[in-house]
């Protein structure tokens, strides 16, 4: 990895250099009921719109690579049958200006199942491969347990990662386009003092976490506690609304629907993200539901993320961003659920 430092005011110039592309970044979108700013990722047209000191966005960046609804194919219907047209919906490269480590790691996890497995999903892959990701350091919020998940720092999956050292940014460079961009700024090699400052900031960040999840031996504990009363307790609270999956940066489950045009000459096939907490998730034709209770569905969500995915890819499908707990109207949070299943309430 190649490192550089540059003065903070150079960042606007970096934005200017990238402005020929579609740029998505964190913007402030009003205040919540406690007066705290609400942030989300939006397409921006002006550097001033960016809120790079944002805490956390409500939604994850996944919708830019995995839209909530997407047309997979269209059919031209005719007397002899039909003709299928597939469009991967890859329109233009996208620059992500200011992504936190958790969200970068979330995309890396999605890559495992959507890009690096049998039948890679070209709709995802096309959008993912045309992303330019500029990461930015963050400060832990009360809901963040990324440190427990090993996703508090990003080691790959970005082009450029900036850490705020005070008056300047410490830049980690992971791609040729990023290197070329920085060569157009006024950059310096980091000094020994910059190295020390970088490490100091990382240490300070690590000390600031208040939420934590113990994932040691969790795959086994989940199997041991499959019949635990804890699942019923959380199942009682769960509203089966699917909000957790909606805001989750790693949830990718979906359903496919087809529609016929009113003129009966065309048809469409649409993918829509789903949630395993919704009641019909595992219902088969004829009406049998493999997970009829909200407890069984909530449990399945934890089994997929913390047991099944680990078995398949050696890491959990969770980056500890805590968005699900923040968004949950029933105030169900992964640290609380996992602690209760472990018997550590």
């Amino acid at each position, binding site marked *: 990895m190649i490192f550089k430092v540059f003065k903070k005011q150079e960042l606007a110039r970096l934005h200017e250099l990238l402005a020929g592309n579609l740029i998505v970044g964190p913007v402030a979108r009003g205040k919540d009921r406690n007066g705290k700013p609400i942030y989300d990722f939006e397409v921006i047209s002006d550097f001033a719109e960016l809120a790079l000191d944002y805490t956390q966005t409500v939604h994850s960046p996944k919708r830019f690579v995995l839209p909530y609804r997407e047309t997979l194919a269209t059919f031209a219907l005719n007397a002899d049958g039909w003709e299928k047209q*597939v469009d991967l919906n890859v329109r233009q490269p996208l620059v992500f200006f200011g992504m936190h480590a958790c969200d970068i790691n979330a995309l890396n996890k999605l890559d495992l199942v959507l890009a690096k497995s049998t039948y*890679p999903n070209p709709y995802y892959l096309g959008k993912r491969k045309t992303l330019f990701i500029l990461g930015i350091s963050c400060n832990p919020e009360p809901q963040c347990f990324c440190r427990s998940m090993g996703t508090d720092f990003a080691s790959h999956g970005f082009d450029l990662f900036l850490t705020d050292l005070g008056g300047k940014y410490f830049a980690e460079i992971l791609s040729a386009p990023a290197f070329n*961009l920085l060569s157009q700024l006024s950059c310096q090699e980091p000094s020994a003092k910059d190295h020390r400052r970088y490490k100091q900031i990382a240490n300070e960040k690590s000390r600031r976490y208040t939420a934590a999840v113990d994932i040691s031996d969790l795959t086994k504990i989940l199997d041991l506690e499959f019949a635990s009363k804890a699942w019923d307790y959380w199942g009682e609270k769960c509203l089966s609304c699917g909000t957790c999956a909606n805001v989750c940066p790693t949830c990718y489950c979906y359903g496919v629907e087809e529609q016929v045009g009113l003129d009966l000459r065309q048809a469409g*096939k649409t993918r829509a993200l789903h949630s395993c907490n919704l009641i019909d998730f595992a*219902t088969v034709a004829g009406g049998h539901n493999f997970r009829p209770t909200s407890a069984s569905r909530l449990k399945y969500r934890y089994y997929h993320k913390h047991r*099944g995915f680990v078995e398949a890819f050696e890491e959990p499908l969770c980056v500890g961003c805590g968005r699900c707990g923040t968004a949950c109207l029933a105030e169900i949070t992964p640290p609380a659920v996992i602690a209760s299943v472990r018997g550590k309430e």
Partner: protein
Amino acid sequence: MRNKLPLLDILAPAPGAPRQEDPALFEYTLPAEITSIYPLTAAEKLYQIRLIDPGQRERFTFKPGQFVMLELPGIGEAPFSISSSPVRRGEIELCIRAVGKLTNFLARLERGARVGISGPFGTSFPLEKMQGQDLLLIGGGLGIVPLRSPLLSILENRSSYGRVDIMYGAKSPAELLFTNQYEEWRHFEINLGITVDRADKSWQGRTGLITELLQERLSQTASLRDNTYAIVCGPPVMFHFVCKMLTEAGLPMQKMFVSLERRMHCGRGKCCRCNIGSTYTCLDGPVFDYWSVLNLKEAI
């Protein structure tokens, strides 16, 4: 100067490294034609389906136990076990109950209608390992549908297998599938045991649970340990009792196979609807050995 990033064409071959899996093959539908329709009961029909393109027909092969996704553009897409023998290339038979949106629409189609097929997907029954052994094929209700493909393969190569027993249970005589083929199966020295939950006036056969049929069969053999394989397919409750009985009769877990049903929206390990934990019924199944099933919570 503004840097415009290049748009990558992901369908273009990567320089240097040939692609292992072509992303263009993710969303495809092979045009096919319904060549025959045989009503089997009031709700189920057997559809013979043939790929239209001769090249695709030649390349289309499958193994007993695998499934295809059948698509009716604008109506929907769903997974179906293949019920026929793999001998005829590019031609398959699907036994389908009219029970949902897609299947009810399908039931109204006539011979010659165009459908879309993708696949085959999933795991298969290890018939080559089963050669020289006695076989128990145990099906309940629609569970007979995925059993028919391995059965037909066994009949085509009957002398390679030992004693073959089929145990088949349905709710009522009117719901029995493939009734016109029982004589042919028996002709190949297959022991066919059939039972129904509720008899009607014309029913001459057995009434009772499939486990009673199995009990009778088990009483004829000391142990299933050394020379028997079993394939079990049926409703979830049947798996519990039948697999338990087979285990108690000495059948090793890795010689007992089940075919599981789950909801699927892709067949390619992406939509998660068929997940059991993170095991995909579409990729790692639908055929599992009993060890895998026991190792997966909530599988049966």
